[in-house]
């Protein structure tokens, strides 16, 4: 399994699309690692600093609705993966992006709007650290002495993909 957990970066907008996550001009790369410097290059939202330390340190993304809409490019999860970000948490995901995440053994976790709101409220207090308990399906968010633990749900197939580190290994052994 991949390693999950660490510092959280908050992207406060709905409908963040895969062109913003990794622009088409980098799709000529055949190696995942080459995408590393270009993650979120075209994303423009208030308070988001592309060149900032926060993005460098982040291991988890928290965002709003319909995350990862648009193009089917798996370069979007890869751009996160090569930057050591293996979890995106949002209110909802576009189908292809969500599937691509699990297909790579990464996690796209859906939480209710109120829960996402409370995470954004936490982020106002400082840098948020998250610990992930995959077996117990819990994530603890910690900031400035405060902690918030939330349960998450994965369907069985998605959990199996995370454990198998992706769909290729799973499918090859089965079909």
């Amino acid at each position, binding site marked *: 399994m991949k390693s999950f957990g660490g510092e959280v970066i908050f992207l406060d907008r709905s409908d963040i699309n895969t062109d913003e996550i990794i622009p088409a001009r980098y799709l000529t790369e055949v190696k995942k690692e080459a995408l590393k410097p270009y993650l979120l290059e075209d994303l423009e939202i208030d308070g988001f600093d592309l060149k900032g330390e926060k993005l460098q340190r982040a291991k988890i993304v928290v965002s709003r609705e319909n995350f990862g809409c648009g193009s089917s490019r798996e370069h979007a999860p890869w751009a996160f993966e090569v930057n050591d970000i293996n979890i995106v948490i949002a209110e909802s995901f576009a189908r*292809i992006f969500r599937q691509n995440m699990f297909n790579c053994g990464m996690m796209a976790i859906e939480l209710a709007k109120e829960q996402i709101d409370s995470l954004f409220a936490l982020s106002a207090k400082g840098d948020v650290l998250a610990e992930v308990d995959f077996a117990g399906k819990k994530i603890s968010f910690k900031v400035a002495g405060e902690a918030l633990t939330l349960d998450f749900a994965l*369907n*069985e197939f998605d959990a199996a993909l995370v454990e198998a580190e992706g*769909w290729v290994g799973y499918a090859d052994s089965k079909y």
Partner: protein
Amino acid sequence: MPQNIADKIFAAHLKDQPFAGTNVLSLDVVMCHEITTPVAIADLEYRGMDRVFDPTKIKAVIDHVTPSKDTKTAIQAKILRDWARRHDIKDFFDIGGNGVCHAIFPEKGFIRPGYTVIMGDSHTCTHGAFGAFAAGVGTTDLEVGILKGVCAFRKPASIKVVVEGRLGEGVYAKDVILTIIKELTVSGATDHVIEFVGSTIDNMSMEERMTLSNMAIEAGGTCGICLPDAVTLDYLWEFVADDYDNDKEKALADFKQWHSDEGAEYAKIIKIDAAAIEPVCTVGYKPDEVVALSTQQGMKVDQIYIGSCTNGRLSDLHAAAKILIGNKLAPGVRGIVSPATPKIFDEAMKDGTMDIFRQAGFCVTNPTCGACLGMSNGVLAPGEVCASTTNRNFVGRMGRGGMVHLMSPASAAAAAVKGELCDPREFI
């Protein structure tokens, strides 16, 4: 229990249900292009699994950047080309014979009613126009499709969109789908299949239906399906006549098996009055930000792009040419037209359509995705504006800092002549 068309296709292709709600389907067609496939090929090689499940069910094309523009894209093309040769994939289309995937594959008769189709491309939903379940997937799903001929899906619920009545003059399939996306929003159909029905759809050609289905993903839809009928059959006849002993009735009866049953379940039903649809365009960076073109008068444009898997087919070129005939591009406006396939190009040359574009001052490119995704030709400079017949207006899509207004070919042609956005009915 009554079933809709997506239910029926799922049931007919179900290979495994490893967990409740997870459906592993067998695939009839796996389509490949040179942007998302080379990484899948490289990974298969790395794993020592460089095999294909069935070379006759794999279709491949170099279309996004062709001819190659630099070393990197030349390598991508070469990986796909070498792989197609190595595995004896006969349906591979290269320079001179290549065109935009979602235009050339249907044109070759590869898609049939009831089929399951995947491709590493989000606009694979286009092929739902033939009554198939066709979904865009990422590279890993594509990789497993190539290797095993299967793909896993959660069973999508369906949204029925009923469009009734006659479209007004100057109003096209593009205006219909943009109006639908406005209503559904960019996420309104996520994890759903959109089923397009009603008299307006019945009266549409396959080219128009492909324009509709093409943009299902812009509302988040997994696929956009039209029910296969006599129009579908006419389009496919040269490819399927033998299968049905030259008997159209027999073919139609077979197509009918896929039609949604009376009383089938839908998550939502939306009704649209065709007569009320106006020529529209997008503003901003989301395809659901749709407004009537009549409200955008005076918005200046720098570039016109007519092409893509949405609107680069012959009837699209004809609709634009009808407005361009005897007119010229407004001063300072650049026009690019990219017929979506060699066949469309040839036909547009023969029937004089290309002359009209040339006389209006348009640049004619080879069939390719081109400006649509700003990867090869037709890239905008920061601050520039394009009236485009493509399907995505995301920030940076046609070049960093550029603005793309999506619209029908007629509306784009009207903007070309006027130099600003306008209602195409001014030219009728």
